[in-house]
């Protein structure tokens, strides 16, 4: 696959702290790439620089091998779906969708018949044909979203940019629109660049996820890479519920790496960890759902003794907050099994499988809450 959009060493300064520090990434042709991060991570600013709505302080934006850093917005081959939809309130649904095409009519690049056919087709694609003559204020949030989508897609741009497009919809509508976006991406085979702060949305929709924090790119990878093989403690804690723990490495030649944790708990890691010497401080990640929990009085002999400080029954799963001497653990368990009898304050045994222990490279960074 060839890159269609590339940003190199992008930086944006508004006069306060840097909004975007230093971001470089490639987006491949036909890819669905999400920029994921908390507010203030620089994800929207990065998207706006790709669109040309902001000029980078440093760095460049490339489109199919051409430097477009200083190409005006109107001349870039990409369409954006705005967070507030940005539908023109003085134009009907039909006119909104036809807006971009009519501009081409003025330049003699399209015929009236073609406009009619294309607007029709795309209104059909987003299931809004029945509302073509309505004004935007007469539509529901989800319908407005669809108009914005049709308006962006109708001009057949190679790249579509999304700035938290589902942010203003309610939870149910959001799920419907997520499926819709996924379907549109599959059918139209366009490149989608999607900004969101919702990690489930990012992972569920995208081919690759770029995790941003404080204007920097932390990790760029497929959803399962980012989830299971985070390259830093920050990514590990930002995505999903993870326990990032510190321990001491126990290296015995010919045997898998062992990690002794603060509470005296010893774990084996199946993973090769070259370069780690005996006695070195290491940071490991254990996903909350990969930990096992059992009543302390049960038949399991090994594991970490912990106490339940919070227990949330969520239907399909149960979320636990546990304390062990020196640290806290988050754990989620599928409903069913022995642990359902547990209650607040109970002593439990926490177990972990060596396969799930992930040694994180580099120094530990402070925990980030999503």
């Amino acid at each position, binding site marked *: 696959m060839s890159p269609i959009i590339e940003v190199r060493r992008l930086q944006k300064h508004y006069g306060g702290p840097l909004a975007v520090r230093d971001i470089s990434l490639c987006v491949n042709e036909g890819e669905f790439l999400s920029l994921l991060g908390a507010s203030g991570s620089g994800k929207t600013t990065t998207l706006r620089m790709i*669109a040309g*709505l902001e000029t980078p302080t440093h760095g460049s934006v490339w489109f199919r091998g051409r430097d477009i850093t200083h190409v*005006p*917005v*109107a*001349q870039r081959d*990409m*369409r*954006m779906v*705005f*967070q*507030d939809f*940005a539908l*023109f*309130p*003085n134009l009907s649904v039909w006119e909104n969708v036809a*807006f*971009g095409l009519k*501009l*081409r009519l*003025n330049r003699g690049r399209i015929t009236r018949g073609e406009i009619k056919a294309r607007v029709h087709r795309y209104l059909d694609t987003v299931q809004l044909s029945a509302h073509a003559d309505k*004004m*935007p*204020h007469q539509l529901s949030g989800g319908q407005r979203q669809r108009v914005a989508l049709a*308006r962006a897609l109708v*001009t057949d741009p190679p790249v579509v940019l999304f700035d938290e497009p589902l942010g203003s919809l309610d939870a149910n509508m959001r799920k419907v629109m997520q499926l819709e976006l996924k379907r549109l991406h599959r059918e139209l085979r366009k490149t989608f660049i999607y900004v969101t702060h919702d990690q489930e949305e990012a992972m569920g929709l995208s081919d690759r996820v770029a995790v941003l924090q404080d204007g920097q790119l932390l990790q760029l990878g497929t959803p399962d890479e980012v989830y299971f093989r985070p390259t830093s403690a920050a990514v590990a804690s930002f995505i999903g519920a993870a326990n990032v723990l510190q321990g001491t490495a126990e290296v015995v030649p010919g045997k898998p790496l062992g990690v002794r944790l603060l509470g005296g708990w010893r774990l084996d890691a199946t993973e090769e960890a070259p370069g780690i010497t005996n006695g070195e401080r290491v940071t490991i990640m254990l996903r909350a759902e990969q930990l096992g929990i059992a009543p302390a009085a049960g038949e399991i002999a090994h594991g970490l003794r912990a106490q339940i400080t919070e227990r949330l029954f969520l239907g399909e799963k149960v979320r636990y907050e546990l304390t062990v001497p020196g640290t806290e653990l988050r754990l989620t368990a599928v409903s069913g099994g022995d642990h359902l009898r547990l209650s607040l304050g109970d002593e439990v045994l926490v177990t972990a499988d060596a396969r799930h222990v992930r040694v994180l490279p580099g120094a530990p960074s402070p925990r980030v809450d999503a």
Partner: protein
Amino acid sequence: MSLATANRDRRHLLIWLVPPLLWFAVFMLIPYCMLFYYSFGSTEYMTFKPGFSPANLIRVFRTEPYLSVLLKSARIGACTAIGATILAYPVAFCLAFHTRSARAKFVIYLLVIVPWWAAYLVKAYAWKTILGTNGIINALLLDLHLIHEPLTLILYNQFSVILTLVYIFTPFSILSIYAQLERIPTSLLEASSNLGATTFETLTKIVIPLSLPGVLAGAIITFALATGDFIAPALVGGPDALMISNVVINLLGVAFDWPMAASIGIVVIGVGIALISVSQYVEHRAQARF
């Protein structure tokens, strides 16, 4: 709560309605009633005689120079409104979309407002010194040897009245258009250029249509204020630029024909109400979209 206490509470609430109702009666209802009372009467040897005759109202339309002065005033008002709108739009646009820093916005805002701290009379008089025979413009043109004797064309006519009125009332247009432009989200302009529109296309297809209610409101305010003005025609307008308010003043203070003056007042108020109704209708239709 029992019915009795509910009723008593309701009576207590009614007390709060008294001040606004009183205010409305003293400053609106009674003056309007008096206006109608006078207009249906007549005068005999400069004394007022009450009556029920619509003769004065008919005379407004039938007897010269009332109707022609009324139309001329409306024309001057319309020219002022158009001039003020043309001058105001770029300023309001800059203020709304091209002034990012709050301080710059405040300074421009202040520059628009500050002239209002000066007395109206002084501002109108200032134009007399600018346009007059020995005024700034004539002095400059004479010094540059572009003319050999002072121009008299530029003062004491309808042009000088319109110029003065435009200068005085443009701030109303600026504020009215600015308030409307402020409501347009920046994302609409971004979306438009993202879809390939040039700045000019965005302006004509999105910004101007969306700002029309503000333009209209500003135009109606300036039109109403200019049409009813009497200081500018008195100071910088010649005999040709006599306006309807000057006629009313003469009828009241010189001819003592109060019924005629009241009738002209009613016609002017009627036109004003009609215009405001139209603008409200347009605005309601447009604002529902935001």
